[in-house]
């Protein structure tokens, strides 16, 4: 599945939920199922500190593709992290660098990700972008 196809798939999934709370239920589910992030990797250099939730992010470049792992102390944030990872992990830096991340707006998460929210997610996206640029 291409990056765009995966994004379309997520947009479809979200379009089923009319109620906001149902979207959150779904994100909470995703958050609970996010692959565990090793406790010893929760170091300050991997920590993206926001006023609200904290996000830890790590990545590696393997066979020309970027692989992300991340965690948060807030579950909805974790759900969004899980979405991001399912879209971007395993893609080439060039693919990620060329993407505009606009699918997040289409699923209505824009406000959760606006810089004024002062949470770690905004910085997480910045980090994904810059990892892509550095490694392109």
């Amino acid at each position: 599945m291409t990056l765009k196809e995966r994004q379309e798939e997520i947009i479809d999934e979200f379009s089923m939920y009319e109620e906001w709370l149902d979207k959150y239920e779904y994100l909470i589910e995703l958050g609970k199922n996010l692959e565990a992030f090793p406790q010893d990797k929760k170091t300050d250099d991997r920590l993206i500190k926001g006023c609200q939730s904290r996000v830890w992010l790590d990545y590696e470049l393997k066979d020309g593709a970027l692989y992300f792992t991340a965690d948060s102390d807030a579950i909805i944030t974790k759900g969004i992290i899980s979405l991001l990872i399912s879209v971007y992990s395993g893609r080439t830096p060039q693919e990620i660098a060329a993407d505009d991340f606009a699918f997040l707006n289409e699923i209505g998460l824009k406000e959760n990700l606006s810089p004024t929210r002062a949470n770690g997610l905004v910085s997480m996206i910045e980090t994904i972008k810059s990892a892509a640029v550095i490694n392109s």
Partner: protein
Amino acid sequence: MNIEYIRSQFPQLSEKVYGKQLVYLDNAATIQRPQSVIDKWVELSSKMNSNLHRAVHKIAADATEEYETTRDAVKEFLGAKHREEIIFTSGATASLNLVAHCFSEAFVHEGDEIIIAESEHHSDIVPWQMECEKRGATIKVLPVDEDGLLMVDKLPEILSERTKILCVAQISNVLGIVNPVKEIVSICHSRGCYVLVDGAQGVVHENVNVQDLDCDFYAFSGHKMYAAPGTGVLYGKKELLEQMPPFLGGGEMIGTVTWKKTTYAPLPQKYEAGTQNMAGTPTLKPAIEMIKLLRSEEMLKYQNDVRDYLLRELQNDPRIRLFGVPRGTVEKIALFSFAVEGVHHEDLALILDKMGIAVRSGQMCAEPLMDRFGVTGMLRASFAPYNTMEEAEYFIKSLHRAINMLV
């Protein structure tokens, strides 16, 4: 006086969010403004917009009259002795910085000590840290106990002959506990230490009389007491303000200006340099009227019922850890900060938001207090006198629903 009538005076309260009726429970951050305040603001902007004190023309005289009668109204409201003890500022933060800087300039020297309550807002901590760093003075902390009550019994040993001032909020924006300010002032004064009271939360909820409290400074913001944003007050005892140097230099705060020597204006102009918030500051008058209106016996009884209901519900829920628990005769306002076992405050706030409920989450500008309780943040619901029992019940119901989604 009925609550529906009161609510109809606040346009923001009838707004909807995400198609749901807004339930505004972030009043400690900014309280909603009544129509009377908005009208005053518009009137000043459309009928007498001109600079204060500086011109002889009609609208300048009208604006100056509005501004100066506001000073009288605030003086009456706070029970101050002299009108020149009322300094208009842009808010509590500006008032607190003014005291920190000018008081320190006059009275704080190397080796001196300043006491700050553990529950203070950053704006009552950071300005003092900046001054202490410059002057080689140190900060000592007046701690709170596990319930969030100030440990006033420790005060006598924390005070020393080097202590110059103690800074404490009348009501903390996190704990909602009404602190025993009068007792603290009396202990400090007996040891030659001045007291600055941060009244940002207190001024809306308590009957303030600065002469009775005998505090040396009292600071608050307009936007937390129904007035326009960008307005605020510093009360200071005249003899102290007179001994302190000016804060900002500029127009209006001077006596005469020459290249050789400049003299300063007397109080209060000495501390009101530059063009003032001429449209905003006079809204303090209708704001004070609103405070008084909401303090009728009937309204107070209703507010206490709402508070007691919430306190009971939150305290009886084993999943909830409430910060600021009243004990004995200690009073608490309807401001509730808490943590929920195994649940992040941001998740709760996001879900409640989508239910139409505006609450605060995070560190609430009191990081040292978060550290004290070992949490990264809290959820805070702060009620105003215009919030109804139905809103309180809806909040509790929604909170349970949100918690159940998350655990």
